């Protein structure tokens, strides 16, 4: 189970301010803190803090300041592919592109870029019309992304399919469909593509966010989830991820397994 730390995102006030003021400190603080929490990768998202025309420069800067303090690989999170490419050029370790929907024009932009920079791809099970309601159509989009990986020569384990979870307080019917999608995506190819979720989305604006996050994550891991963009500093949540590794017999049990899971 891979943890992609979600905290370096311009949607958070401190990161937004840091981006506007070119202040590396908050970004570097969260890079280190998330690594200590148990993150395997750091998600990097400027959010709306930076005007579109400045994003190329902003991503290059963010990647550089993070790499000054952390060796963790990065997940470059933007809808602006030029900004992602600027980040990929300065990444020291193979990164992951976040994200590419099942749309031909975007596939043609993203998949060759992934090959060029030896990067992974997060593929979203949606197109211009939006997110499907059921598992069947999510899996159909996943199949298009799997076919694209095959066509462009992206190794299947470098493709992370994200079946897109929505907040349970407004779109409750999606939660079981996403679990079903995870199970089916794992059957699409051999080796199977990997899977990822933007986990915190499931609990948006609910009072019991942490409980919902960790309950859903345990269910999702049992259904085939390989990675989550999530709060790497929610210790209970990271403990659940570590315990799932043990209960699914993916890692050999030892009394100190929680501590070992966090060692990087």
């Amino acid at each position, binding site marked *: 189970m891979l943890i992609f730390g979600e905290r370096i995102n311009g949607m958070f006030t401190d990161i937004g301010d840091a981006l506007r003021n070119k202040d590396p400190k908050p970004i570097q603080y969260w890079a280190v803190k998330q690594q200590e929490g148990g993150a395997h990768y750091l998600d990097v998202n400027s959010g709306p803090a930076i005007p579109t025309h400045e994003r190329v420069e902003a991503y290059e800067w963010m990647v550089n300041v993070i790499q000054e303090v952390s060796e963790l690989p990065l997940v470059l999170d933007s809808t602006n592919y030029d900004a992602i490419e600027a980040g990929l050029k300065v990444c020291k370790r193979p990164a992951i592109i976040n994200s590419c929907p099942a749309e031909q024009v975007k596939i043609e932009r993203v998949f060759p870029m992934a090959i060029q920079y030896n990067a992974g791809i997060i593929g979203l099970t949606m197109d211009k019309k939006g997110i499907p309601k059921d598992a069947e159509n999510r899996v159909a989009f996943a199949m298009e992304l799997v076919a694209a990986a095959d066509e462009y020569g992206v190794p299947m384990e470098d493709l992370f399919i994200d079946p897109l979870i929505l907040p349970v307080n407004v779109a409750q019917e999606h939660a079981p469909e996403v679990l079903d999608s995870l199970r089916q995506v794992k059957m699409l190819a051999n080796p199977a593509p990997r899977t990822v979720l933007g986990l915190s989305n499931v609990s948006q604006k609910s009072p019991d966010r942490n409980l919902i996050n960790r309950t859903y994550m345990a269910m999702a891991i049992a259904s085939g989830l390989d990675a989550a963009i999530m709060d790497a500093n929610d210790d209970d949540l990271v403990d659940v991820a570590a315990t799932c590794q043990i209960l699914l017999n993916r890692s*050999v049990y030892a009394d100190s397994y929680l501590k070992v899971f966090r060692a990087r």
Partner: protein
Amino acid sequence: MSVTLVKEKYSSKVGEVVLGATAEQGGTRTSTITVGGDSALPFLHFEGETKNRPVIAMEVTDVVPAWNEMIMNQIGDVINDPAAWAKKCVDDFGADLIYLKLNGADPEGENRSPEDCARIVKDVLAAVGVPLIVEGCDDSEKNNEIMAVIAEAATGENLLIGIAEQDNYKSIAAAAMVHKHTLIARSPLDINICKQLNILINEMGLPLNKIVIDPTVAGLGFGIEYVYSIMERARLGALANDKMLSMPIICTVGYEANRCKEAYASNEEFPGWGDLADRSVLWEAVTASGVLQVGASILVMRNPAAVSVVKKNIADMTGK
């Protein structure tokens, strides 16, 4: 029709551990030995590299052992002299390294002092140029005393010292750390304790490349298949990037195989079992070859004739 081999891909490999130290490295060995480093299950050369050939350590004891005659006869008079015995193992029997077992330290037996034990270690170091493995007796408290003194007396030699166990690891791990030796971590045929012990030792500050796993083995016919499954689990863990199971493995096959009745019972007692002269050699050799197939890096052996058989097996399997 062409056949496509189905190959497993692994994300990691077994860690490498260096035994012994040359003069340049602070010791007095004429050569060092590197074990581990494999990137696939043993000898599956089409899936990954078997980087370092498995090695054989021959067992030498500081008091004359009660071993069966067929082994005693091959060793001869030197059995009274650990240094000469060690030299014979290297020169005549082709041992890659020496495993010195200090049974004389046992309070129930000779009760040798730590200083006497250290002197024996120094004698053996002087007699041979190969790296040395040193284990104490069967009394863990006494072992803590003698290993502290031995570790200091042989500072810089990078001995492989043992043994650390879950309820008694701190003293010997500290000795290894301070005096730059490598440590044997023994678990009682239990993969979970094996991993936990490695974690605990590593937390004390001993790097992972200074630890060798002793999973405890069993002789052929006495649970070797259980040993096999434990070792396989450790190896698959190492290949899946479980750093706390990634150390090379040492197996005391000579001790275990020769505890089996089949290795020493006379022809008269069991006429149907075949000639003891062959049976004794084969029992140890087959036990050793069995654990080689699941990733043993260091075989601790007794019977020179069995060593000869297993050396050929290793050469055949590795092409080295």
